[in-house]
């Protein structure tokens, strides 16, 4: 797609690139109309939205943290998408990552480890668990020809129920049941396994996950644009048969691509746990996987696009929650906006192709 984009005349290219932007603006306008239609004050809602997204150090940090999670899922998504693979299992990969990170962080020997290992090992465990989960879908694809959309989706549901299982059973990760009112959650993880904060402000939840995310974004961009591996992914994605004939290890590449996408998801789960939530509970992935998928889709394969989309959705969600609390507008409104954006962008693909096709 980028190769084609370079050959397009500027005006058409601009039009093609502006479609996600138009979809976003159009959907936000519909959102504002819905607020007006529901009889709530539009200016108040906007004020509440901005306040919740940027207003305080806490709001700003929470939005950025959300954006970090969405970026990581989105980055994994575009990596696999380069090989023409659609990873729908972000939600489940977050879940297994969270389980693995919790299990390791709560294992007594870990908390006392020096040199930051107490933080790094759970992160690594989460990443590996996610890679394994994504890898299963990869193996199913090359071994049985199973469409990865179906397998990652099903694996996602299994993983979500695994979290539920883990926190329901004291034999697994549930905290010791001292009374009948003990919640089905894990124990909180020790302080030494938590991610360090980025600022001195105790109000700000901002943590070093942001730096990790930016480093990984840069790495992804380099891998996709400058490495042999990135080139091979693209070759497999464009024409699997031709790539195999050219001597590329097609099966391994596909498994690795889905494994990496899963690793990003698992890492996200570990970061969400060690950075913000600090204990495991059912539904702790709370839709980040699907939001991240949307971010990946809208980016059209660009790393910068992922970061921009993640920031947008990070602030959108935080602002939406504040709108509900302060202006009484249900935060479900942000879901409406998000759904409309996805549908509009998906529906306009043919238009983009027409704009690009003129030069082919």
């Amino acid at each position, binding site marked *: 797609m980028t190769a084609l984009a370079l050959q397009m005349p500027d005006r058409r290219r601009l039009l093609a690139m502006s479609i996600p932007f138009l979809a976003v603006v159009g959907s936000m306008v519909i959102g504002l109309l*819905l607020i007006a239609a*529901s009889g709530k004050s539009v200016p108040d809602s906007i004020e509440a939205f901005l306040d919740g997204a940027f207003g305080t150090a806490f709001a700003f940090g929470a939005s950025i943290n959300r954006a970090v999670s969405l970026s990581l899922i989105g980055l994994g998504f575009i990596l696999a998408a380069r090989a023409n693979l*659609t990873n*729908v299992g972000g939600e489940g990969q977050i879940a297994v990552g969270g389980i693995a990170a919790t299990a390791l962080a709560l294992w007594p020997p870990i908390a006392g480890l020096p040199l930051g290992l107490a933080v790094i090992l759970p992160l690594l465990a989460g990443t590996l668990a996610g890679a394994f989960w994504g890898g299963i879908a990869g193996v*199913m694809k090359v*071994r*049985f*020809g*199973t*469409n990865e*959309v*179906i*397998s990652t*989706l*099903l*694996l996602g*549901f*299994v993983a979500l*129920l*695994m979290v*539920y*299982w883990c926190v*329901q*059973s004291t034999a697994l990760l549930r905290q010791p049941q001292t009374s009948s009112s003990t919640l089905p959650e894990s124990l909180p993880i020790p302080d030494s396994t938590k991610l360090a904060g980025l600022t001195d402000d105790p109000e700000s939840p901002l943590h070093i996950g942001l730096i990790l995310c930016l480093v990984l974004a840069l790495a992804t961009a380099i891998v996709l644009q400058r490495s042999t591996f990135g080139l091979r992914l693209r070759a497999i994605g464009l024409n699997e048969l031709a790539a195999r004939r050219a001597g590329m290890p097609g099966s391994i590449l596909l498994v690795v691509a889905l494994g990496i996408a899963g690793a990003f998801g698992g890492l996200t789960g570990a970061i969400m746990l060690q950075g913000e939530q600090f204990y495991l509970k059912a539904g702790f992935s709370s839709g980040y996987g*699907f939001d991240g*998928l*949307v971010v990946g*889709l809208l980016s059209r394969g660009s790393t910068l696009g992922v970061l921009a989309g993640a920031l947008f959705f990070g602030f959108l969600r935080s602002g939406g929650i504040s709108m509900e609390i302060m202006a009484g507008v*249900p935060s*479900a*409104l*942000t*879901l*409406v*906006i*998000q*759904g*409309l*954006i*996805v*549908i509009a*962008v*998906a*529906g306009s*693909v*043919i238009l983009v192709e027409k704009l690009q096709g003129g030069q082919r």
Partner: protein
Amino acid sequence: MEETLAIFIASTLRLAMPLMLAASGELVSERAGVLNLSLEGMMLTAAFFGALGSWATGNPYLGVACAVGAALCVAAVQAWLSVNLRANQLVVGIGFNILALGATTLLYRIIFGGLSREEIPGLPKLAVPGLIDLPFAGTAFFQQSVIVYFGFALILLIWWTLNQTSFGLAVRAVGDEPRSADKAGIPVARTRWLAVLITGAMAGMAGAFISIADIHTFTENMTNGAGYLALAAVIFGGWNVGRTIAACLLFGAATALQFQLPAMGINVPTAFLLMLPYLLALLAVAGVVGRLDPPTALTLPFQRGK
């Protein structure tokens, strides 16, 4: 024991019913080559507008009509996007599911306000004279709301249409060999459109069953993944009506067991039973339960001359 069994059968049927309705509808569309990941969203939309219609008019049958109408609207947009605009069916489906969750929650909060769980006029249960006295299954099968009997009739109709009519043949042709079908004069786009609309109508019935016949109210995200489970049933059933219905019953039974086993003193983790349908579907797509043969052109848009 007999009573436990009767309860088990009844709750299996109750839990499987929306799955059977949605899955049999989705089957038609998938046989025509269109995958509706939006099934979940269609059902949720239908459940909401069914509840709204029933509440506003006081007539549950009009509620069912509203549910089907609303799901048909979603299906029409889905058909337009996936048939005419050749959009990625998976992406569109995910978009619809997000939109449906957001829109129904939003409208519910605006119309019903807060978290009040207004009871809506539900469908009455109809006892079939004579059959209801059968041992074990009598009350389970023959004291159900009208929608259940009607639903079974619709499912039979779908089986008959797919396997015994020229329309069914056309559906299978455009799903397997759209190019050849087109050359043979079968209108590919129109056939796919109709197939998606059938999915919409059945998803509408499924949503109506959940809100109007079963729960008698609307709650946020009340379908809670039933649409995905129905999709899994279609896969597990190998795109065959009978086997898909069997898969739905199996999934329903697995879910029903979570209430039954503890009552019988058997301790199986609930999570495992809830997971079972997805695990079975995974095994099915991995080809463990025999080679699966999905429609060749599933999710592939058709464009003449390309």
